[in-house]
């Protein structure tokens, strides 16, 4: 898998629609806050925090961005404020305990394998640990009481993608139309695009599709 990221929409920025009929007042208010009021750490310990930041960097790597989409701060806020998801999986501890346990266990796994903290490992080592967690192939006893794959898929990955794909930069990179109210769309068939939708870079798209 390539280490580079290629967008099919290099010239598209969903924020350019801010003052168009595609954005209404409440959406502008919500997104303005997301862009400008990134919260500070309140829940995780400093150690847990650096582990979480390092994990987010591997799950959603952003080497192409000088100003990466912030992920860890929003997860911290969500857990601090006990924002529920409606589901407490019986196999996992309650939300706050689950997140602390998970970050501690990832760190313990790094120590178990390399005798170094997770955030100091090189990316290949970090990825191997995350794959082991994903496959329930962990070695540290710190995972007792926390099924690693369940935690990884249903809590950790889920939270990371929910935060990342809530950011306008992520909408732009995938060519998503973004906010659309009151103006929606007119052209619905395949390969048809309204003027206010992202224009695909044909050559990049052809190259990416050929690789699937």
């Amino acid at each position, binding site marked *: *898998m*390539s280490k580079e*990221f*290629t*967008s*099919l929409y290099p010239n598209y920025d969903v924020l350019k629609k801010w003052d168009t009929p595609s954005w*209404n007042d*409440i*959406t502008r208010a*919500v997104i303005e806050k*997301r862009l400008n009021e990134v919260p500070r750490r309140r829940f995780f310990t400093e150690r847990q925090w650096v582990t979480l930041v390092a994990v987010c960097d*591997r*799950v959603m*790597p952003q080497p192409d961005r000088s100003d990466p989409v912030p992920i860890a701060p929003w997860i911290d806020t969500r857990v601090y404020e006990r*924002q*529920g*998801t*409606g*589901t*407490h*999986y*019986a*196999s996992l501890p*309650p939300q706050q305990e689950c997140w602390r346990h998970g970050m501690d266990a990832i760190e313990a796994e790094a120590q178990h394998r390399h005798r170094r903290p997770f955030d100091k490992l090189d990316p290949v080592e970090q*990825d191997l640990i995350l794959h082991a967690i*994903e496959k329930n192939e962990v070695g540290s006893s710190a995972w007792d009481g926390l099924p690693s794959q369940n935690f990884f*898929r*249903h809590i950790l*990955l*889920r939270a990371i*993608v*929910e935060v*990342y*794909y*809530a950011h306008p930069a*992520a*909408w732009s990179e*995938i*060519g*998503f*139309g973004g*906010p*659309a109210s*009151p*103006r*929606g*769309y007119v052209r*619905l*068939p*395949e*390969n*048809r*695009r309204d003027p206010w*939708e*992202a224009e*695909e870079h044909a050559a990049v*798209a052809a190259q*990416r*599709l050929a690789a*699937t």
Partner: protein
Amino acid sequence: MIGSERHLRATAGRAPDVFARGDWVPMRQFSDEEEVDFAIVGTGAGGATLAAKLAEAGFSVVALDAGPFWRPLEDFASDETEQNKLYWLQDRISGGSHPIEFGTNNSGCAVGGSTVHFQMVALRFRPEWFAQRSTMGYGRDWPIPWQEMWRYYEEVEDALKIAGPVNYPWGPPRGRYPYRAHEVNAAGLVLAKGAEAMGVKWAPTPLATVSAPRGKSPPCVYRGFCKIGCSTNAKQSALITYVPRALAAGAEIRDLAMAGQIEMGENNRARGVVYHRQGEWRRQRARNVVVAGYAIETPRLLLNSATAQHPSGLANSTGLVGKCLMAHSNHAVWGVMDDEIRWYKGPPSMAVCEHWNYEDKGKDFQGGYSFMSQGPLPADHAKGLVTNTGMFGMELRQRMALYNHMAGLKIVGEVEPREENRVELSDEKDELGLPVPRITFGFSENDKRLYKHALHFMRQALEAAGARDFTHTASTAHLMGTCRMGDDPADSVTNADGRTWDIPNLWICDGSLFPTCGGVNPSMTIYALAARVADRIKEMGARGEL
């Protein structure tokens, strides 16, 4: 969470005007001490429909909802995270061999209930399913003949101005839908192409969003955020249809009112509802209590209302309250297309195939399924991908980069009603001191054969439509059962009218009543049941039988 940070809107003689910004409609109000004819818990497809029809018939009605009373035009953002406010996000403990995801997946918490976020798919049950045991040899019979249910489908389809095709390809002839079908989007046309290649029929999905102006609802503008709330009011949710009707007819709707117990009085009759609102516990007196909280909250409330006379919970002398929970299998196949699909445009499921609901030959399982085209929003799609595959890193980001070239087909698959799939009360308490529900769910061997058949078929169809590079996902959708209706008091919780066998003035009116779940989205069947329950109550009232 519930109610703590939000302000009441339905109070002081007025309720929000859902068709305007910041405006109000008048609302009749009742005091807690006044014994109303009906106290209804829940204002979704079941509760709101019943509240409207009973109020229009002259009954005094108070309907409680745990959630807020939104004005879609000013309150609904085009944003997945913000719109989490539409869902039931309090903890439910989820276990079993296939734990159900709740919250954004299937549970609303708002006046209008889950219809505020539903994807508007408006299908009818196949006629044979109402006598499934008798005619097909499996499942259970419903206590209502299909012809009668189909008459009520017609009533509620008209009330919601369903937009659908002139000729629906499956089942007995039905009248044409009230509004013309919507233009099918590219994602739907992928289904059409696949179905045609497989030699099966397809149809534009009948949808509860208008294709032409209706009153204060403008036609759908295909913005594609239906699953997180319609900000234009094209969607005909209970919030903008039956709720305004109920208010206009003199019903009171109480928002941010969480029911905790049904209170029993003398002579084995319910005397009212204990509910939490504005930081205090209150009691609404009522001659009749109706529970319409959907298939988790309804049994939770009944079980939490146990008394010395009803030690295992109200209406539970059979032990069936909470049993036979059904969640449709919701498995899907996703693939990459050369064409730009841009599935974010339009309602998520604009094309449907009900072939395997109506064709019984060639199956290695009992039951049916429909499948529909898909159009998940970015975070929703990414969530399904990672929780099913564990994919992460640049592989995930690159996969998501093909978002506009993705197409998917997803089933609504019938599952068997089995007692081991159930809702119980745990020992944990929520912040109001109410017991947190514990849900156990898993698929039977038959359920698994059904979704495997579906995945195989949909993958062939998607491939025939030009897709490649497939991924499969497993999930569940909708919540049904847990208080099934029936003809035999020893084998059901309520009769055909939703009236509990054990307590004559306690009723149930929601998806909990389903004895079986069929292979279609449940909303129209819930609406139809509620419309029928209302008519039956009117008849019984006229005869002095309440």
